[in-house]
């Protein structure tokens, strides 16, 4: 199939950036979207033009590196999949596909489709952990955890930190990302000890980084490649209120 890729090109953080359209020919419908970009990049390289920069690594939807807004959707059309899992057969022959980077103040563009998502790491530094020192912990089976609780914690923990929630949100809110971690650790008995400090610090850092407020329109849940539920945002809110009231 043949498609036209209208892609955001931006040399550096300070460059203004613009869209450039490239025809991409003879793409196999079985190729992934990123492989289509590979093909384009190899062609560009041959011509001595600079390839389109994009983040990617595992290409099986778990590392969270890739993230492109494709035709107005974070990670492209379809649900429950990262950009790397998107196949070209989701498009039609002759389509013009618009590819843009995640756009949010806390995600400045580094180059083309690559953005800096370290703001999410800084939220994690602020409290996305249980302060258990290496060694000196009890046997793994010392505290039974009800299966449904463990499962729900696992649902939250499956976040890949890609930032699609922020990219999809009209307010660039990171509540689903923060909610997933706060919720995971609040559910587990070992995380309850530090629950108050954790939620306070993580929300504080989230606000400092310039993420927007949650308007509860749940675009995040719809675009999350791991389909993490906004229930975890509710739990984050609850934890935050608990912290304030208690």
């Amino acid at each position, binding site marked *: 199939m043949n498609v036209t890729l209208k892609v955001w090109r931006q040399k550096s953080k300070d460059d203004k950036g613009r869209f450039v359209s490239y025809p991409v020919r003879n793409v196999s419908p079985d190729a992934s979207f990123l492989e289509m970009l590979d093909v384009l990049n190899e062609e560009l390289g041959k011509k001595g033009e600079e390839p389109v920069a994009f983040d990617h690594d595992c290409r099986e939807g778990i590392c969270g590196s890739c993230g492109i807004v494709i035709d107005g*959707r974070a990670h492209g059309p379809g649900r429950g999949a990262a950009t790397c899992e998107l196949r070209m057969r989701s498009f039609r022959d002759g389509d013009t596909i618009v590819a*843009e980077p995640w756009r949010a103040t806390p995600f400045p563009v580094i180059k083309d489709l690559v953005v800096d998502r370290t703001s999410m790491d800084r939220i994690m530094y602020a409290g996305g952990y249980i302060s258990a020192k290496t060694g000196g912990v009890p046997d793994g089976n010392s505290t039974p955890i009800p299966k449904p609780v463990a499962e729900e914690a696992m649902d939250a923990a499956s976040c890949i930190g890609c930032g699609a929630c922020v990219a*999809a949100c009209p307010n660039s*809110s990171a509540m689903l990302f923060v909610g997933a971690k706060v919720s995971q650790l609040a559910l587990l008995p070992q995380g309850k000890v530090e629950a108050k400090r954790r939620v306070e610090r993580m929300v504080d850092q989230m606000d400092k980084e*310039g993420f927007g407020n*949650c308007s509860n329109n749940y675009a995040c849940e719809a675009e999350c490649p791991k389909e993490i539920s906004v229930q975890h945002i509710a*739990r984050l809110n609850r934890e935050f209120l608990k912290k304030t009231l208690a």
Partner: protein
Amino acid sequence: MKKLIDFYNSSIGKKVTMSLTGLFLCTFLLEHLIGNLLLFAGEETFNAYSEFLVSNPVIRFVEIFLFASLLFHPLVGLLLWISNKRTRPQKYEVYQLKENTPLASRITMLTGSLIFVFLVVHLRTFFVPLRLAEVKPSGYALVVEAFSSAPYCAFYVIALVFLAYHLRHGFQSAFQTLGLRTKSYIGLLDAVAFIFWFIIPLGFALLPIYFYFFQPATTAAATALGVH
């Protein structure tokens, strides 16, 4: 106090402010509708009720919160809206938010603004004369008078449609923000939400429709009105 200020300053704190003021306004709506349905009971009953509202000290006390909410809810909403706009200075070329979200959630700012405009007019029509005018008019007569105008009724009904949309999103959103929209309560919450976003605006909308089409007689004249 510092704790409270810090709380308000946080993103979640602001949302909780929206949520609490919004829910308070929802309870007011419920009360207001029940009261207004007395219009169907006739002039005397309604006027007695309206008199009660004006004179009862408890109501006057609660009114402070009502006005505080009426002020804060849109104000904080506006502040949030402005700060949220700043999070994405470079807009998407293509942005398919509609694929991922219900319409009501995307237009809360619009519906909210129009409801605010409606409120100003509404207060001017009913509240100002009933509460602030030197010679208190008959509440029932005011209603009859106001709803005799077709454009006014249309404006009223349209505003209620907007209110419905606003609450369609806002009601469940308030509970989500308070962390109460949990798996086990979603069903119940949706049912209650239906009362608020559908039944209540519908109830309110019946009034102008009824009064416009049936134009019941009134004994008192409406005075000091800006409806004409």
